[in-house]
């Protein structure tokens, strides 16, 4: 259960920013593995790419795209808040990032499906 004092959009945005960041770091080795296979031989890469057709992989990719959008939106938000003269856009930017992540994820699913 979340502590009551933490239950507000600003804290959730921090959690989403952090979780997406860690998830992306964990994904990176997989990404490098794919690149490494491409260097090794065509067949190895083909095998890997065939595995990416699997629905579980598509779901994973959807998560990746969504997390990337979340991380990008959350990071841009912090930079906008800290570098520009203060305007009361804190929660607006959080809402924008959330909507953007859902939208980008949906577009990905439509195109993949």
């Amino acid at each position: 259960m979340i502590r009551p004092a933490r239950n507000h959009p600003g804290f959730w945005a921090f959690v989403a920013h952090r979780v997406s960041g860690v998830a992306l770091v964990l994904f990176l080795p997989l990404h490098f593995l794919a690149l490494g296979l491409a260097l090794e031989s065509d067949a190895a890469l083909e095998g890997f790419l065939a595995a990416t057709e699997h629905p579980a992989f598509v779901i994973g990719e959807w998560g990746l795209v969504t997390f990337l959008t979340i991380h990008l939106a959350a990071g841009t938000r912090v930079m906008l808040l800290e570098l520009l003269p203060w305007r009361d856009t804190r929660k607006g930017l959080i809402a924008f990032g959330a909507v953007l992540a859902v939208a980008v994820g949906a577009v990905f699913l439509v195109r993949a499906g």
Partner: protein
Amino acid sequence: MPQRANQTVLDVVTWIQRHAEPALAYRFACRVGVCGSCAMTVNGRPRWTCRTHVSRVARERRLRIEPLRNLPRLKDLAVDMTPFFEKWQRAQGRFTPTRTRAEPMAAVRPDSAPRRAADAGIECINCGVCHAACDVVGWDPDYLGPAALNRAWTLVNDVRDGDRHGVLKAASAGGGCHSCHTHGSCVEHCPVGINPTAGIAGLKRQSLLDLVGGGLP
């Protein structure tokens, strides 16, 4: 305990102290939201208890009243505010005068941008609610916290202050404004509507500007 219309959480604590537990330790003074001494954790959130109506915060007629977080407990509901005020000093949250009382008062335009920025944070009552709400204060014992940094920001914007550079330096050193994660728990809970996150963002920006040579005059 008798229930009354408009009963505050502080009324409840006082009733308990007078009728049930005479040794209960807690703090208050003004009872009207001015002195900032009555803050406690009420149902998990830091609040000024003298201006918090029971009817607004009780859940299923239950109240859980605890001392403020992030400060050492002295006894029962009273915490030691010393670290809070020490951080205030470490952030150089004090005015450095440039004139004596014999000289005329400085003329400051109320509608100038720096004055407006200072005014936005000046009504702080030192209640420690934001300090208790902030997770970074809990994680990093060195972190100055929202209240001290908010005070520093008002001074950085006070054209009468004789050492604004010193304030900026103190507030942006290790454990200063750059440690803030922009959670905004301070803004969510400040009872007088101050936005320390905005001031801390201002300090971050100002210290960056200072670094590239576009800083304070």
